[in-house]
């Protein structure tokens, strides 16, 4: 089996991006972020009440490696909407502040006050669980 032909982690990441209209790759989970930048990015999504899938990249270092190779983006977090990389923490925060994030997500932004997280919230996923 050649390494080039088979890359189950990259395939699983690509599949997760394809299957989830809004997906955030982050350190930790939205409930328990393990990095300030991941926390801020998840917080922006949560405050807009937009449903999103979340993948914790920490359990297996290969997830981050393959994700960055796939997206051509060196850092975590990474937000994808409809299969496209939107950005990391800085871009997502900037877009949140200008209202562009709500636009991209197709939701209404109600003022600048963060609203309560809705029950439709994030669904943590495990890429590494698909590798067995």
């Amino acid at each position: 089996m050649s390494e080039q032909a088979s890359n189950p982690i990259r395939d699983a990441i690509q599949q997760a991006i394809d299957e989830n209209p809004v997906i955030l790759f982050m350190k930790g989970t939205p409930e328990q972020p393990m990095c300030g930048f991941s926390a801020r990015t998840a917080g922006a999504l949560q405050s807009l009440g937009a449903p999103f899938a979340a993948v914790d990249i920490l359990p297996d270092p290969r997830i981050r490696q393959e994700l960055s190779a796939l997206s051509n983006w060196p850092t975590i977090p990474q937000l994808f909407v409809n299969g496209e990389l939107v950005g990391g923490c800085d871009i997502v925060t900037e877009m949140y502040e200008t209202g562009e994030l709500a636009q991209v997500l197709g939701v209404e932004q109600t003022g600048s006050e963060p609203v309560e997280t809705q029950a439709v919230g994030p669904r943590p996923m495990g890429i590494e669980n698909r590798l067995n």
Partner: protein
Amino acid sequence: MPTAEDVKARIEASIPGATAEVQSPDNVHFNARVVAEAFDGLSRIEQHRLVYAAFEGELGGAIHALQLKTETP
């Protein structure tokens, strides 16, 4: 460990005509504002990639985090 001055110099050397203001409390986390003509017409993603290109594999390593704001003059 790279200093804020190092990071500034790297960005400005990598993007012709760019001006960077860089701050760092610890030489591991950096905050940069980069103004460059070269960003004109590029998406935010592409602008950030242009800055990241100055650091190759170091982002996430020696440079743990680079907070970035890109602008055109």
